[in-house]
């Protein structure tokens, strides 16, 4: 792995990790638009996707400013290839059924909300203000996803079975959220971004509480996948980007 010495280079990486994660998850969630089991959930998913895409504009917009090469949020979102993306692997997991989408959302929200809380204390005012803005929105995401995981986990036999299957499938992708590398350590030492491992106690407590109420059991001793934050992705990301970036690749600089 490359060692990042320059703080600005680390900051660009760190901001892409936040922005790419909200972008990829936002796009994934938007794939439900028109397909959700009921109209209310369809609308709710589309609205959450909208929040995530809005946050992406802030994170990637700042990343472009920090990089100083004239790339704006759109250039970063639509003109990079899979290996340049820094999103968490969890975010690119396919939607699966409705239960799997909600479980992915909950496992992420339970990390996202405390992470944004921590980032509100960043020494970099630009990061603190984005985190404060996004945090208020994400608090609603977390309440919704936790609520639905409990309802479906502790629901019918069928819904319980599906939620447990979703948890078993997604659990090996949760570890990466709390793993720190050189970039994370550089940023944490400078006080500009919170160390991912510092989120672990809050995440574990919240997840344990919700899974307990949902009568679901987290797998024990599962292998944890990693690499998304460094640009090593599963095959799913490339397929997603092919759809997401198609228009800007086929017609560069096309405007609405």
């Amino acid at each position, binding site marked *: 792995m490359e060692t990042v010495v320059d703080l600005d280079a680390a900051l660009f990486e760190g901001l892409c990790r936040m922005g790419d994660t909200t972008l990829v998850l936002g796009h994934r969630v938007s794939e439900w638009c028109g397909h959700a089991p009921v109209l209310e959930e369809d609308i709710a998913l589309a609205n959450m996707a909208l929040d995530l895409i809005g946050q992406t504009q802030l994170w990637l917009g700042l990343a472009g400013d920090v990089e100083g090469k004239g790339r704006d949020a759109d250039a970063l979102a639509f003109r990079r290839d899979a290996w340049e993306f820094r999103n968490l692997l969890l975010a690119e997991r396919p939607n699966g059924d409705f239960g799997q989408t909600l479980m992915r959302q909950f496992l992420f929200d339970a990390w996202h909300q405390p992470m944004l809380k921590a980032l509100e204390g960043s020494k970099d005012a630009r990061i603190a203000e984005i985190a404060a803005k996004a945090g208020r929105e994400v608090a609603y995401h977390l*309440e919704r996803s936790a*609520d639905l995981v*409990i309802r479906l986990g502790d629901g019918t036999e069928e819904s319980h079975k599906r939620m447990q299957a979703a948890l078993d499938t997604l659990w090996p992708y949760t570890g990466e959220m709390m793993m720190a590398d050189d970039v994370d350590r550089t940023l944490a030492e400078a006080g500009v971004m919170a160390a991912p491992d510092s989120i672990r106690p809050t995440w574990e407590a919240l997840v344990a509480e919700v899974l307990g109420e949902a009568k679901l059991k987290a797998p024990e001793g599962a292998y944890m996948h990693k690499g998304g934050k460094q640009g090593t992705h599963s095959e799913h990301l490339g397929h997603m980007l092919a759809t997401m970036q198609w228009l800007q690749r086929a017609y560069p600089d096309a405007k609405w």
Partner: protein
Amino acid sequence: MVSVAQVWNWLDEVPDPEIPVISVTDLGIVRDVALEGETVVVTVTPTYSGCPATSVINFEIEKALRDKGVADVRLERRLDPPWTTDWLKPAAREKLRAYGIAPPIDGTRAEGVVAGRIKRLTGVALVVPCPRCGSEETQKVSQFGSTPCKAAYQCRSCLEPFDYFKCI
């Protein structure tokens, strides 16, 4: 030369594109109006970071001022402090209710805790009165309604579905 007070008055008449019964100043998103020489600088904060109305709002503000004869307009974005429904003017809350949207109930912002836990801590679930019949027998259908800033509710007395403008 135009005055700052005059600009504020003009902005009072610029409707929110999603909820046209309230203005951009009712909503509390205009954070500052200043004059820099001949240029009118209007500072706007977004409601939600992904709100698609943001660019329309900026366009409407600029257009309204140009229609009043202001040649130089500059819009600036300010994120800090983040927009809160606490900034909705009292009169705007009544306008929302009359329009069929339950206004935000202050002090009930999501804190990112499990809903069931809030209920256990406070002993009460959030009661959102129906904007049509006033009944408190209402239920949440979904945390997100027609836009991210609203939740979908239904009244159990008059059976009408309605939007609740969430506290943020």
